[in-house]
């Protein structure tokens, strides 16, 4: 394992030290070493937005703390939900008295810890409501949507929810907009190589050279199909088909598109794939209003790519267009 590490069991804490020092203009530590918050949080008169999740997905999750982005983030071990206490402390850091929207991904650990944290927060008089991202179309059949994983679509959910909070909207309004964002969003991933948890030291699953895993999860959870490695254009077609047919996105829709690398895939390859995604959507007369290409939600050193598409309406367009300033997402 050719990695930059000291004690692999301590990597999350060490990473947080570096992150906090490098981005002191945006994030600030809290009393809980596993919770970071926006320098401006809690934002007076605004609903707070909190999230959290396991580590190893940089820039997610702490990279989405910022201006008009998340107020506080609970940080877990690699690929492991943060503790209930960490979520609670994130709620505390985010709350200005107007309540907290906890926008997180659908994983059983996160569900349990968030549930416990909310119970404690409620006792303290902090109102918390949740939106649970479940955009990964490959992670369960459509009639079991509630089982689906949250993946890169969480970024759209955060962007929309946080922008809504920035408008001064109420907690219910923020929840409604963030829920609409994720309901309008579908993702799918293709894995080309496995990832290695630093403390394990070797990949815990294999993707044979010359094959690819369609529908892989952000933690290396197996996908729906292992098939021979395809060309970029074929991958794009496969991903567009899964995502477009699942929602479904139809002629005339306006959409936001996010192509994210899983970590170790050279960025230039994401653009090669995006070129074909764009052509395919154009052919289906689906209009791309906004595009993001880059490493937005990764899985340690995994090679591969995810495609995320969100259908926009006037409200979502306005919220997606709002200025934002975080490590992972900056827009004027």
């Amino acid at each position: 394992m050719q990695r930059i590490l000291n004690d692999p069991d301590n990597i999350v804490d060490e990473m947080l030290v570096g992150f906090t020092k490098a981005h002191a203009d945006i994030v600030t530590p809290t009393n809980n070493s596993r919770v970071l918050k926006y320098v401006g949080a809690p934002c007076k008169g605004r609903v707070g937005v909190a999230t959290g999740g396991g580590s190893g997905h940089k820039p997610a999750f702490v990279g989405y703390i910022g201006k008009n982005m998340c107020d506080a983030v609970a940080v877990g071990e690699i690929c492991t939900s943060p503790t209930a206490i960490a979520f609670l402390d994130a709620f505390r850091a985010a709350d200005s008295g107007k309540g907290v929207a906890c926008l997180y991904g659908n994983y059983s650990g996160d569900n349990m810890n968030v549930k416990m944290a909310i119970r404690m927060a409620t006792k303290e008089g902090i109102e918390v409501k949740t939106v649970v991202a479940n955009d990964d179309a490959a992670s369960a059949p459509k009639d079991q949507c509630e089982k689906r994983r949250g993946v890169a679509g969480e970024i759209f959910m955060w962007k929309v929810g946080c922008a809504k909070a920035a408008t001064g909207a109420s907690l219910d309004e923020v929840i409604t907009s963030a829920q609409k964002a994720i309901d309008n969003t579908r993702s799918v991933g293709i894995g080309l190589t496995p990832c290695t948890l630093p403390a394990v030291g070797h990949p815990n699953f294999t993707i044979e050279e010359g094959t690819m895993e369609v529908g892989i999860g952000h933690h290396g959870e197996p996908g729906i199909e292992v098939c021979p490695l395809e060309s970029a254009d074929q991958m794009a077609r496969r991903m567009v088909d899964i995502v477009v047919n699942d929602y479904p996105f139809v002629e005339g829709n306006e959409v936001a598109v996010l192509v994210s690398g899983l970590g170790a895939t050279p960025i230039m390859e994401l653009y090669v794939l995006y070129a074909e995604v764009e052509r395919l959507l154009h052919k289906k007369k689906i209009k791309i209003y906004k595009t993001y290409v880059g490493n937005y939600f990764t899985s340690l050193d995994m090679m591969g790519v995810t495609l995320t598409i969100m259908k926009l309406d006037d409200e979502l367009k306005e919220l997606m267009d709002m200025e934002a300033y975080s490590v992972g997402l900056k827009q004027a």
Partner: protein
Amino acid sequence: MFKNAEGKSIVLNMAKAIHDNKAYLGEIDGLIGDGDHGMNMNKGFSCFSERFSDKKITFSEGLEELGMVLLNEIGGSMGPIYGTIFMEMADTANGADEIDLALFSKMLDAGMEGLFRIVDARVGDKTVVDTLSPACDVLHEALAAKKSFLEALENMKAAAIVGMESTKSLVAKFGRSSRLGERSRGVLDAGAVSCCIILCAMADGIKKLSSDQIGTI
């Protein structure tokens, strides 16, 4: 029957068993999960061992502290699941000077009931529950049949192993692997395995303690 005050070694024995099986648990979780089960479990249990190796605490206090470490410092699925189980067990034992089969059975029941308040998984869903539930059942049977604590513990180990092995042919209904549907069949559930390791280590720890406190069981 064993003295609660002398039961710290039981909890340390559980921690050692998890430590020894860290890589194995990671491998199993890697097959249909994300591979971190051994790592996280070990982190929590080791943390407990280090912190309390030279402190005097009872069995029930040990379970309480272990539960707190898991819940408040480890997170993941295991924090809430084992955290709840151990803390409920501790609550049930609290105040007791001695722990006999009846109380031990009640403790495990309380652990499972606590778990059922936070997860919807039941027997057959390919989770920890498939190990824990038959273990509870067999203790009831042993109590009814007036078996010795020692024999009951042997029965519990056997039931936990059978329960753990039953997960192999099941399809996961909860947790990370549940999205795989049919593809989750054919391999063990990581949580069911760790639960089996814990229950066996707990039983062995009690037996060892009892044989040290000759004749107390």
